[in-house]
């Protein structure tokens, strides 16, 4: 137990990363939250259609992508743990693994879309596919941006910019990446599984 707790003062941690990213995170989660609610409302008026076309989705692709994103978050968390101990090498390795997991997500998603669009399905095919394509593609773009952020952080890590005492950029990027994971954790069961 820390000294501050022993003195009866419960000290709290500061927010991880830059405050600005937290406004971005809140805005993104608000947008997706509204999107999810609209999905549920529209589905309530088209239950049979949503149940029917949900079965056409590649659930295994969704499962793989969920495992991949959770694992990438795990690597990012380990990276934060490592930089707090000043282990720059391990931090870099964890970031690379997280980016690699992101690349797997992108690959699986492209494979999934190739089957969907290859079957002639598009945004206007029906209401279910309008939501499936727009929700997953919107999330996909966030994964891409997250990977770019992690890659930039990796670049500066290798340049010697970050230390145990100074690594706010890593915390900022990590927070954004975990948000991307959180969004998929809701999206996957909602769109692929729940019926």
């Amino acid at each position, binding site marked *: 137990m*820390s000294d501050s707790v022993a003195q009866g003062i419960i*000290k*709290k*941690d*500061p*927010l*991880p990363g830059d405050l600005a990213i*937290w406004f971005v*995170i*809140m805005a993104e*989660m608000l947008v997706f*939250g509204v999107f*999810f*609610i609209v999905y*549920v*409302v529209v*589905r*309530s008026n088209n*239950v049979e259609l949503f*149940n029917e076309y949900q*079965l056409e989705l590649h*659930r295994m692709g*969704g*499962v793989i992508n*969920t*495992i991949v994103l*959770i*694992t990438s*978050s*795990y690597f*990012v*968390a*380990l990276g*934060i*743990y490592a930089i*707090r101990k000043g282990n720059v090498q391990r931090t870099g390795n964890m970031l690379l693994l997280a980016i690699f997991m992101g690349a797997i997500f992108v690959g699986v998603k492209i494979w999934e879309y190739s089957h969907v669009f290859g079957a002639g399905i598009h945004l206007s095919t029906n209401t279910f596919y309008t939501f499936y394509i727009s929700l997953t593609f919107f999330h996909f773009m966030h994964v891409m941006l997250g990977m770019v952020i992690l890659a930039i952080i990796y670049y500066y890590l290798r340049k010697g910019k970050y230390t145990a005492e100074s690594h706010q950029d890593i915390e900022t990027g*990590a*927070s954004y990446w*975990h948000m991307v*994971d*959180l969004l998929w*954790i*809701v999206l*996957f*069961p*909602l769109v*692929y*599984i*729940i*019926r």
Partner: protein
Amino acid sequence: MSQTRFSSSKKLTIIWVILIALTLSTAYIGYLELSGLYIVAFLLLTVTVKGQLIIDHYIGLKDVRGFWRLAMLGFVYVIPGIILTGYYLSSV
């Protein structure tokens, strides 16, 4: 910074195992194409549990002051709650 954030890489690994196990349970339900309000409730409960684990231990908000942690937790409690309500109303 407190000792509780990322206090152990072993803890992070245990949480990863839990997250994967919950994901595989969701996948199995999907494989069986199960439906019904209790199934929906269970799936959304896994979303909430997974979300809280990530928010508290991966993002590291477990010991962060008030608003931000509550707002993040709100996403994994309120949204699944609204979704469950929507599914209940559509099944009535």
